[in-house]
């Protein structure tokens, strides 16, 4: 009796060169200088970060750069308790939707220096950057966000961003 063979493992990997385009390139260059750069739509005035070079609602190019604060609020979040391949961090951790002050669309990032059960919608947070000599044109220049200790933002102030 020979053992049945159902399948074999053939791991694949994929390395690719991502062509970022003009607007995201400005955003990534900003990160390498410890700054967060968004762009404002000339038609609806919404501020996009990361900027994609056009407004998805109005369909017009966005050319005006806007320097954004590295502070903001947690609009909503998920406590991830499940480890998975390729994860940047060890579970449990909080992945949060962070609306930077002055932006109209939230970023997704890691939230740390807080117990998972203490995270709240509306919590004020700030970016924790890597040391200056480790800055690079990548979101990895921001290690994570952490609470500022300021009072929570009222629900009304961010409910449009849920």
């Amino acid at each position, binding site marked *: 009796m020979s053992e049945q063979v*159902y*399948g074999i493992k*053939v791991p*694949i990997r994929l390395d690719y060169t*991502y062509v*970022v385009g003009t607007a*995201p390139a400005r*955003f*990534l260059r900003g990160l390498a200088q410890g700054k967060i750069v968004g762009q404002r739509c000339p038609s*609806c005035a*919404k*501020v*996009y970060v*990361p900027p994609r070079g056009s*407004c*998805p*609602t109005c369909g017009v190019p966005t050319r005006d750069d806007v320097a954004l604060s590295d502070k903001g609020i947690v*609009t*909503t*979040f*998920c*406590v*991830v*308790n*499940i480890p*998975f*391949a*390729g*994860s*940047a*961090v060890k*579970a449990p*951790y909080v*992945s*949060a*939707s962070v609306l930077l002050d002055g932006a*109209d*669309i939230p*970023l*997704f*990032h*890691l939230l740390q220096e807080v117990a*998972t059960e203490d995270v709240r*919608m509306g919590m004020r947070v700030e970016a924790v950057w890597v040391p200056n000599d480790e800055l690079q044109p*990548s*979101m*990895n220049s921001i290690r994570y966000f952490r609470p500022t200790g300021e009072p929570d933002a009222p*629900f009304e102030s961010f*409910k*449009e*961003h*849920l």
Partner: protein
Amino acid sequence: MANPCAIAGIGQTRHASQRADVSIAGLVREAALRALEDAALTFADIDAVVIGKAPDMFEGVMMPELMLADALGAAGKPMLRVHTAGSVGGSTALVAASLVQAGIHERVLTVAFEKQSESDAMWALAPKIPFQPTVVAGAGGYFAPHIRAYIRRSGAPLDIGMRVALKDRLNALRNPYAHLHQEDITLEQIAQSPMLWDPIRYAETCPSSDGACAMVLVSEQAARSAPHRPAWVHASAMRSEPTMFAGRDQVNPRAGQECAAAVYHQAGITDPRREIDAAEIYVPFSWYEPMWMENLGFAPEGTGWRMTLEGATAFDGDLPVNPSGGVLSSNPIGASGMLRFAEAAMQVRGQAGEHQVDGAKRALGHAYGGGSQFFAMWIVGSEKP
């Protein structure tokens, strides 16, 4: 005016965490042959094949439709593949239906599948992209924050999601094809299952399944020679929205609202809760039932959870939702949308066996995908429109 389109054959596989007994080709053939048998047709009678599945990244097989052409009898015929992420099973059926409605083909075979045992969906859905750290863990990591937002916005009691999970798993006991058959499941067991992506518990997520679904869609002329009563397409629509834009509402997406409004308008429905007898909707995480009840116009915004709480969506409720057990009981991703569409058709054909909703005349099939970006829906009826 579009030509009438009938669903003359429906087939699905037994869904399981691993169908090691068949290859991908064997899996799709199992569903296709059952659909052909139901319609008393063979591959030779089919004019075109329309196939759908989730992104190739899942099983790591690039363009599997190429190697499946012969398994599905498509040699010498048009074959096309539809891509709309998780909603693909629904949109594949709609593309197939449109070939009949446009008068191009008489008999179209449509098939959708996923073989999750040969795939790593968590990996495929945790992309490394230059703008964000890899912190989004699979589909649950993406949808959990939106569920949290729904709970906050609606003030829903925290046990609503668990009630949905219990209802769908109990419904699955009536469906011999369902992946999960959890005879002694209780609310307490669900409550004690691990919190994977807070606020989503393990027992509130869909399983990972191997499975396929197929339908034979035919013209009015071809429907005359069908041996069993067909279902008829009364309305169909797809809508999309951008992945991201300022003010995007992912709890109650505009594309979903507009897609629902379009199918109700086509079907002449003004009060969907009263006029639809059963709904098979895409609920991969339990909380999406109340969310979609609102998005689909069955309940005013912020009150969808009351339908679950009051038992309206239960098997014996006024709007049975997912009498088959739904995505929470079987999730071969690419096929899941087509299963919703097919189960809706089974209801109006009176073909659903133990999970038949008594006297169902009009049913809704619904699918969504791509981070609530794509919506596909149809309304099917027992009478020719």
